[in-house]
């Protein structure tokens, strides 16, 4: 693989441990040092959980039973416009609103996201074991982004020129938290197609969380991700459109929304971790088509199919679009019957983005 000197880093920074070990064993000196450095600490959600288990007594007596099902444990921190994480706690579970918009939006957004996973799929938080939810707001100075650092959510204030504060959009909060769920269930590697699937999972559930709070059926939803985030003066409506990938913004400074909505327009690139935020438009569109075809509340059936697929042990960390498509089709068949309208809608959704699951199933069935 070729990469410009400035790009090397991204090849090993988030690759799985077994690859890191191989690099450490056989790679170039510089790469090996970095790989060993990355391996030195266990940053997984499981490690986080173990740390919590080590000292639960004080917290649980003060705050009620920590792992009780359906009980949220939110903490909102402020970075006070530095880049220090997690920062200073400003609102704990049960505390009254602070009057700081970003703090209160993060608190409410985390609540809506937790409630969504619990009430729609009986999932108890990110790890399904009641993991406390932490978010930091006011990160950095005029910081134009939100991210999941592997353990918590982080939101910038935006610069007011291109972006507003990142807590303004509930689906963005849901998007970030879903990265935790995806990591816990499937560990989809954040590169190329598995990375684009990881991104699509976050858009799908981020959008469903918003739809559920608004009580919208699939045909009434806008299927936009990050509406309200673009500052006044920017030509665009959102970060992405699941319904019409590639149409969310077209601005002289930001450029044009680069998302494809069909395999024939798949973008091969080394940028953006191999186009994870670009090619996610393809599975996003497939979900949209399936959901509007099935109808009703999209989280009930289509969301359930995607959620059960995410939990499927056959979903490997390097799964690509075609394998994922086939798994959603099989899951729809398992839940609603192989000849059900739901299974057909899922097949049609993938067909409309250029992935033929029926043919894939036949391929797989051949001796």
């Amino acid at each position, binding site marked *: 693989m070729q990469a410009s000197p400035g790009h090397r880093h991204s090849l090993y920074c*988030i690759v799985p441990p077994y690859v890191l070990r191989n690099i450490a064993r056989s790679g170039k000196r510089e790469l090996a040092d970095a790989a060993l450095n990355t391996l030195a600490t266990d940053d997984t959600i499981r490690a986080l959980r173990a740390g919590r288990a080590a000292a639960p007594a004080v917290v649980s007596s003060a705050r009620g039973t920590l792992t009780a099902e359906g009980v949220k444990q939110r903490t909102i921190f402020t970075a006070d416009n530095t*880049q220090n994480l997690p920062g200073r706690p400003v609102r704990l579970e049960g505390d009254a609103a602070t009057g700081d918009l970003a703090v209160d939006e993060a608190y409410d957004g985390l609540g809506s996201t937790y409630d969504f996973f619990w009430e729609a799929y009986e999932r108890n938080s990110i790890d399904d074991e009641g993991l406390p939810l932490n978010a930091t707001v006011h990160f950095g100075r005029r910081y*134009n982004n939100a*991210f*999941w650092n592997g353990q918590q959510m982080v939101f910038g204030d935006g610069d007011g020129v291109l972006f507003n504060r990142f807590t303004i959009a509930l689906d*963005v909060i849901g998007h970030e938290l879903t990265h935790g769920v995806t990591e816990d269930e499937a560990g989809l590697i954040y590169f190329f197609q598995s990375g684009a699937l990881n991104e699509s999972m976050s858009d799908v559930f981020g959008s469903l969380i918003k739809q559920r709070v608004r009580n919208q059926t699939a045909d009434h939803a806008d299927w936009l991700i990050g509406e309200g985030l673009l500052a006044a003066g920017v030509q665009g409506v959102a970060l992405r459109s699941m319904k019409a990938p590639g149409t969310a913004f077209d601005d002289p400074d*930001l450029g044009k929304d680069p998302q494809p909505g069909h395999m024939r327009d798949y973008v091969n690139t080394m940028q*953006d971790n191999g186009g994870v935020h*670009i090619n996610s438009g393809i599975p996003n569109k497939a979900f949209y088509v399936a959901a509007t075809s099935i109808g009703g509340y999209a989280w009930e059936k289509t969301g359930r199919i995607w959620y059960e697929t995410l939990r499927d042990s056959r979903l490997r960390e390097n799964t690509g679009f075609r394998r994922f498509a086939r798994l959603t089709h099989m899951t729809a068949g398992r839940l609603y019957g192989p000849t059900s309208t739901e299974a057909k809608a899922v097949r049609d959704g993938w067909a409309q983005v250029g992935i033929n699951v029926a043919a894939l199933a036949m391929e797989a069935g051949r001796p």
Partner: protein
Amino acid sequence: MRIEYRKEGGIAHLPGLAKPLTIDTAELTPEQAAELERLVEQSAFFSLPATVGRLKRGAADYQEYHIQVTEGDRSHAVQVVDPAGAEAVAALIDFLDDRQREAIIKSRAARQRGEP
């Protein structure tokens, strides 16, 4: 002193912001040039490792910053990931982002005046 700066990643791929930015202190105001030189000095840029910041497993939507500083016959490239952690490095990135923002505000104003 010349700086090449490129940012990528984040919650969306924004092609306009992924374009590289080149800054030459000769083209800055004397105050900005002095500020930039101070930030490079303060961050000990030429002694920084090739990568600053370390991603945790499962991290997503973080930004990556590619910075190359050339001064006389020495040149050094550094890649930073969110969160930059080291304050001096974050301050240098803030300075570069401010220049990018200035350019955007300027081009937006020119468009509003009807200039190409």
